């Protein structure tokens, strides 16, 4: 079991020794069971921290803000930022390292093991409780969740309400960390590509109309992009409204701005945005599932990314986020790479 006390202790130590600039973890929203990211700046605030099955947020994307802040400030405080990460989150740190977006000592990592469970999917929980309102959602013993409803305790088998990504997780244990809490217990992921198998069986035109339906709902609120630990570009190629204009931007560059996508959320523009994003995440997406979770119109974005993940694995034996020293997927070429799919 991950001990919350130990977590607090570690965070307190890191803050009071001045080792970290601030610490990002999770805290409850009001008195409810749901959680949100918490920025802890003082050692005495560590009591706000929680660790529950509702800590599904990937906090790594906050490193982008920190990086931008540092670039702006004259004399930035360059101490590392502290983060709580799960297995999937830790892999996204590895990708950032691989892409040299951050350096290892920019971040102080407290890794938590998901042990025999993971994080929950709220929709699944609600369905399971069938209208009952949970007061608390906690880790149970040995592969279960403990939900308090009407002051009653209900044990739920983890697979019943686990987030889809946890069901398909290749490593439920942090692969990079300064401190690790909890035990490294291997949970057999079963079929790692279960969620896409139904879609892979669709005929091409069927798939096309499926995605057309999905994308026509997109609001282009860009929540998916904002939450993504990999979407850190200052100017996204899909942006047509805002782009980074700095002192270095020349008039020529400004004139040469390409508008690949119009701002209006029409189907053609939405498709362009999503396909570009999917391609740009190939070999980079660690399947933290955040984009799908935050989408207000429930577009199943994981399917796209999972498919790319599978292709990378099957075609090139490439696994994302396990080794910060390996070259990124699209930047590595080996003589024995398969070529038979090139027609």
């Amino acid at each position, binding site marked *: 079991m991950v001990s919350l006390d130990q977590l607090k202790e570690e965070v307190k130590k890191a803050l009071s020794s001045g080792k970290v600039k601030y610490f990002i973890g999770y805290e409850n929203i009001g008195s409810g069971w749901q959680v949100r990211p918490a920025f802890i700046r003082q050692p005495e605030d560590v009591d706000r921290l929680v660790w529950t099955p509702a800590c599904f947020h990937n906090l790594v994307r906050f490193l982008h803000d920190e990086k931008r802040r540092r670039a702006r400030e004259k004399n930035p405080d360059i101490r590392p930022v502290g983060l709580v990460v799960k297995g999937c989150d830790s892999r996204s740190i590895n990708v950032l390292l691989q*892409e*040299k*977006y951050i350096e290892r000592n920019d971040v102080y990592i407290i890794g938590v093991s998901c042990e025999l469970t993971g994080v929950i999917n709220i929709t699944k929980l609600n369905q399971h409780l069938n209208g009952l309102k949970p007061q608390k959602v906690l880790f149970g013993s040995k592969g279960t969740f403990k939900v308090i409803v009407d002051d009653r305790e209900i044990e739920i088998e983890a697979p019943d309400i686990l987030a889809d990504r946890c069901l398909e997780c290749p490593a439920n244990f942090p692969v990079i960390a300064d401190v690790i809490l909890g035990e490294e217990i291997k949970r057999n992921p079963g079929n790692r590509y279960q969620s896409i198998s139904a879609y892979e069986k669709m005929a091409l035109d069927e798939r096309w109309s499926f995605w057309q339906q999905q994308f026509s709902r997109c609001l282009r609120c860009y929540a998916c992009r904002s939450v993504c630990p990999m979407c*850190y*570009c*200052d*100017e996204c*190629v899909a942006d047509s409204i805002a782009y*980074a204009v*700095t002192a*270095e*931007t020349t008039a020529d*560059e400004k004139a*040469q*701005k*390409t*508008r*690949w996508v119009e701002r209006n959320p029409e189907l053609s523009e939405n498709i362009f945005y999503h396909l570009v994003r999917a391609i*740009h995440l190939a070999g980079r997406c660690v399947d933290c599932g955040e984009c799908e979770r935050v989408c207000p119109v429930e577009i199943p974005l994981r399917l796209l990314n999972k498919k790319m993940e599978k292709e990378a694995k099957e075609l090139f034996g490439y696994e994302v986020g396990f080794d910060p020293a390996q*070259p*990124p997927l*699209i*930047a*590595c*070429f080996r003589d024995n790479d398969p070529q038979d799919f090139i027609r």
Partner: protein
Amino acid sequence: MKRTGVFVCHCGINIAGTVDVKKVAAELAKHPGVVHAEDYVYMCSDPGQNLIIQAIKEKKLDSVVVACCSPTLHETTFRNATKKAGLNPYRCEIANIREQCSWVHREKSKATQKAISITRGVVEKVRRNESLEDVSVPVTKRALVIGGGIAGIQASLDIADAGYEVILVEKSPSIGGHMSQLSETFPTLDCSQCILTPKMVEVSKHPRIKLMTYSEVQEVSGYVGNFKVKILKKPTYVDPDKCTLCDECTKVCPIVVPNEFDMGLTGRRAIYIPFPQAIPASYTIDEKACPGMFDTAIACGKCADVCKPGAINFDMKPEIVEVDVGAIVVATGYDLYDKSMMAEYGYGQYPDVLDGLQFERLLSASGPTGGRILRPSDKKEPKEVVFIQCVGSRDPELHWPYCSKICCMYTAKHAMLYKHHVHDGQAYVFYIDIRSGGKNYEEFVHRAVEEDGVLYLRGKVSRVFEDNGKLIVWGVDTLTGKQIEIAADMVVLAMAIRPSKGMDELAKKLKIALDKDGFLAEAHPKLRPVESMTSGIFLAGAAQAPKDIPEAVGQASGAAAKAMAILSRDRLFHSPTVARVIRNLCTGCGMCVSVCPFEAISLKEGKAEVNEILCEGCGTCSASCLRNAIQVKNLTPHHIQEMIKACLGG
């Protein structure tokens, strides 16, 4: 403010036959910003070019589009014309309406429409072009030749005679290559060593040739005109300046290993000289054979004890020598196909089944038998010898699909020379067909048949096995359909010619391509046969394809001439359409650094930086950058987008 001129070429009927060129010109004249449009029968002709020059001057054009053939053909022509008219050459672009339009379509109205779209796209591109100046680099006036066979020797001599320095790198202890192992050479039957050794001596005495034997190329970086090469000089443990060739050492060396010069027919000592006329004239200690080299074993040191001049130095260390060169000639030659692949012919099993080079050694006056043809097994003179051609060649199913080219000729030579040595013997040759294209080659084969009574049997051999001291050869004569059985005393296999061992690693270091069979790939099979795809690297000899001596020498001189064309210049010019980093978009992820095939990009202070001299403008970086932060000048995503829009009529 944009003033573009459009020039539509008929290319005789090549374009005008399928595309309504007048209509293309008329439509383009209406395109916004086009102030001049005309068509002409041959734009590349002098009058055609003059039309462009005149229009630029008179109409004050600021950009030019020539709608004609592929830019690989006349881009330079039209850019030069543009320059002559006082406009920056990079303000001129080609719209390819021949290869990409007229040649691939039939229906005139549609082809015309497509030609209009293509040209419109290029108009939109060219008006966004920057005026660029060529990048220029100085040239290192020195050549590297890799491989010291006859091809490498010839290339080195030609380049050095023209006044440039040459570094000749040979991996074995002596230059000479396979030619030094041959007895007499077809079609004239002159002694191979006699014509080769003067050239070897010339190399060793040439003031501008630096010979590096027992050395290998370890790393190559840089680009045409400015390659940086690391050469590994392996220790020979013998100081060639002190060695007097007294040969005392080999008399005391206790170790005997197969002699590669005699193709394993004899043995040599761990300390050895490959052959008496070896260049450099010195001994080498074979590290792998000498027990003195293993730190676990008791050092023997017998050779050092008897070496009066004290030439032996067990402490010699491998050395890395770094050199700068402007051009490289690769002449690494061939090896014979691995004979163990031919179990059905009993090679390796029966001592009297030989390959062609072993037979050359038997024929050679300096060979193991002093030029007498004797069986390795019992030293008796063979009276019936079967020669089998195309062993491993022309066999797409099991071995190699190509023809090894030289085997027909050397087999005729072998059979003929055998008859010259053994007058009462009989030579049989199994062949698929005889390929004797070459000056005096056909006559040579006829001589073997008519004057020397060599029996040519058209067909394949299925098996060779031993029976009662004889080698039984089973074959079919496909002309008569009869089964043939010959009880032979010796069998000689004309093994397929393969690229020399280690060719693929060397090709990787040089970043040059191999063809499907593993030989070095030429840039164009007809028009650029001595060039590799990488500029500044040239090919010579059997490394590019099986070749005989005259062809190898001819190609070597060709490669030398190509290398000299580079070395004779003070500066090389390089296209300025190279990649540029948009620094504020670059996050320094380094993906472009790893994908660039020319190693032109590095990370400096967290941002990508392009070396304009190394960059070939291929655009690979641009395709890999997730942020469009690296773009090829005059072909940015913006250019591409505007071209697409114009093509689609948007």
